[in-house]
């Protein structure tokens, strides 16, 4: 089912938690609502579920306006951050509960619950109580309970934040698998960019209630709309040099030489931020446009991370271990076309070539 959000606003008193957001979630896709805490992503999810009323704007499920419908009428499946499994019910009873409320006959109820228990691989634990399960297993039960209603939309609120690191990686792949298998449009909230980029088809990145960018996951990395997006997505974080644009170069603060960055539609003298992904910084001993000093080197696996002195700022770059330069030596630096962006220092807006 397709979800369409039109001009969505949520206010809590004077605080605008979600500020005029527009988006369309394609049917059958896995969408991540991503952003730092307080960005309005959970508020957004709660408005999609119907737990929170909207202040302004409309929400459509396909062509149906669901803005004023209660959660159960919207046919959404919800997975809470701490799972909210009913502690007095067994796994089977938990999964059956939404069907019991719908007064579906007991036999059919159990059959359907078992089917979804199998899908989430929890069918060996049907008679256990939630407290007898591990965090990952509880998570599976919560997903099965949300899916058993055969919802049009599955909503997960920080589904992985209560799990330990190893389980988190395992469960996020499980969520991906279960989503593919059930084919249900799924929206999940996370503050972890790695979590979002590793499993989702689309990411909506938010900051202070404002949608920064909504795009296919790969595009968010390769084609960020503004400095915030470029900075938030990617690990290690993108290199940022502040300075003045001048005829296809940047005069980085505190750096003697102009660094060529290519021609952009910017007036000379404008203050800009030149951002480059570490893998787009090419370091060589001989050829390259700009000379920089290697400040520090760290070996990380097959690569060496070089920190290059660029005046007030610095650049991080990866070099093969064999080609790694010595610390405190000069190297030549140039940039790839891909993974290099220029932003306005004032607004963070992106400049294009």
């Amino acid at each position, binding site marked *: 089912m397709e979800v369409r959000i039109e001009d969505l606003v949520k206010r809590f008193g004077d605080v605008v938690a979600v500020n005029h957001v527009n988006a369309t979630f394609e049917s059958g896709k896995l969408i991540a609502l991503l952003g730092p805490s307080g960005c309005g992503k959970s508020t957004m999810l709660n408005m999609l*579920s*119907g*737990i929170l009323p909207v202040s302004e704007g409309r929400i459509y499920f396909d062509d149906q306006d669901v803005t004023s419908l*209660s*959660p*159960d009428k919207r046919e*959404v499946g*919800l997975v*809470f951050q*701490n799972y*909210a499994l*009913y*502690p*007095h*019910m067994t796994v089977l009873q938990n999964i059956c*509960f*939404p069907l*019991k*409320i*719908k007064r579906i006959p007991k036999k059919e109820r159990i059959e359907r619950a078992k089917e979804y228990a199998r899908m989430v691989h929890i069918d060996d634990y049907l008679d256990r*109580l939630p*407290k007898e399960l591990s965090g990952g297993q509880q998570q599976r039960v919560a997903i099965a*309970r949300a899916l058993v*209603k055969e919802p049009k939309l599955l909503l997960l609120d920080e589904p992985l934040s209560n799990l330990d690191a190893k389980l988190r990686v395992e469960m996020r792949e499980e969520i991906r698998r279960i989503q593919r298998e059930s084919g249900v449009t799924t929206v999940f909230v996370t503050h972890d960019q790695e979590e979002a980029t590793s499993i989702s088809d689309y990411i909506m990145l938010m900051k202070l209630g404002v949608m920064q960018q909504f795009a296919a996951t790969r595009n968010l990395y390769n084609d960020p709309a503004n400095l915030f997006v470029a900075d938030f997505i990617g690990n290690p974080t993108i290199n940022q040099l502040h300075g003045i644009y001048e005829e296809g170069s940047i005069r980085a603060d505190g750096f003697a030489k102009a660094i060529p960055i290519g021609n952009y539609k910017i007036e000379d003298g404008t203050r800009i931020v030149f951002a480059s992904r570490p893998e787009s910084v090419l370091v060589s001993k001989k050829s390259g446009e700009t000379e920089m000093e290697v400040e520090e080197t760290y070996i990380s696996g097959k690569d060496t991370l070089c920190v290059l002195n660029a005046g007030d700022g610095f650049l991080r770059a990866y070099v093969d271990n064999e080609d790694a330069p010595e610390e405190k030596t000069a190297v030549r630096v140039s940039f790839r076309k891909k993974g290099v962006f220029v932003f306005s220092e004032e607004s963070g807006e992106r400049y294009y070539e």
Partner: protein
Amino acid sequence: MNNEKKHRHPIRYDPDEKFEISILWKILLFLGPFMAGILLFTIYPFINAFLMSFKENYSILRDTFSGWGLGNYRKVLNDPIFVSGLKTTVKYVVIVVPISLALSIVIAVLLNNAKRFKAILQTAYFMPLVTSTAAISLVFRFIFANEGGLVNKIITTLGQSQINFLGTNKWSEIVLYIFGIWNILPFTIILLLAGLQNIDPQYYTAARADGAKTFDIFTNITVPLLSPTIALVAIVNSISAFKIFDYVFQLYNKPGPGYNLYTIIYYIYEKFGGTKPQYGYAAAASIVLFFIIAVFTLLQRVLQRKTDY
């Protein structure tokens, strides 16, 4: 070593060191008064009553008895007055405890969901607990009085004939039940409220999202999650209801207008005092009541373990 000694907790047991006498004194000083009270007013009387129940023809003034035996028990259990007292008591427990519990659950849930005046309402329900039952019983007597009683005024205004609430067997029993329920409510509601506030509101959100309506949530979520508290309250109330005596006495100054509200404690009270005291019977009846209450206490333990999520 020196340093370690300085920081050691003074009471921690160390097998290499002699337990310091001064600490023992301190412990005794703090625990002593309490232990003395328990020994003197609970444990000693209990043992004494237990022994007394097996002494035949016991006289408390002369401290003489004719021999050991089960005669008191045989006599008490075959005494129609005791049996009817037991019946009256059990009937009181069976009526008052479930009704007060059901009422309390409903009131507690409503209070817990109250949006406005929550604090005022919760305090209002707490009031009877801090008011003396003797005062409340007086008010009850006024309310149910024949001439000028509030209830009778309402009844006669509605064109019905006046009812003798306090003077007839049938109605005096009902007034006692109302009085018992009324007195038990505040304590029960307070405990249930505490239990309700321990329930994570997320379960309600989850249930609502699953399509559950208010009644579904009450029966499927609230009551089961409240069951540990419900079990506790039910048992504690049953135990205190088995000991019913003061309410009857305060309302009627005797075991009901026609001796119809004669309870086990009344039996014990009368056998112990009165013109021809039979201490052995009183002791035996106490021990019988003790075992009834002991069974309920054990039941509570089992129930609480079962409902521990």
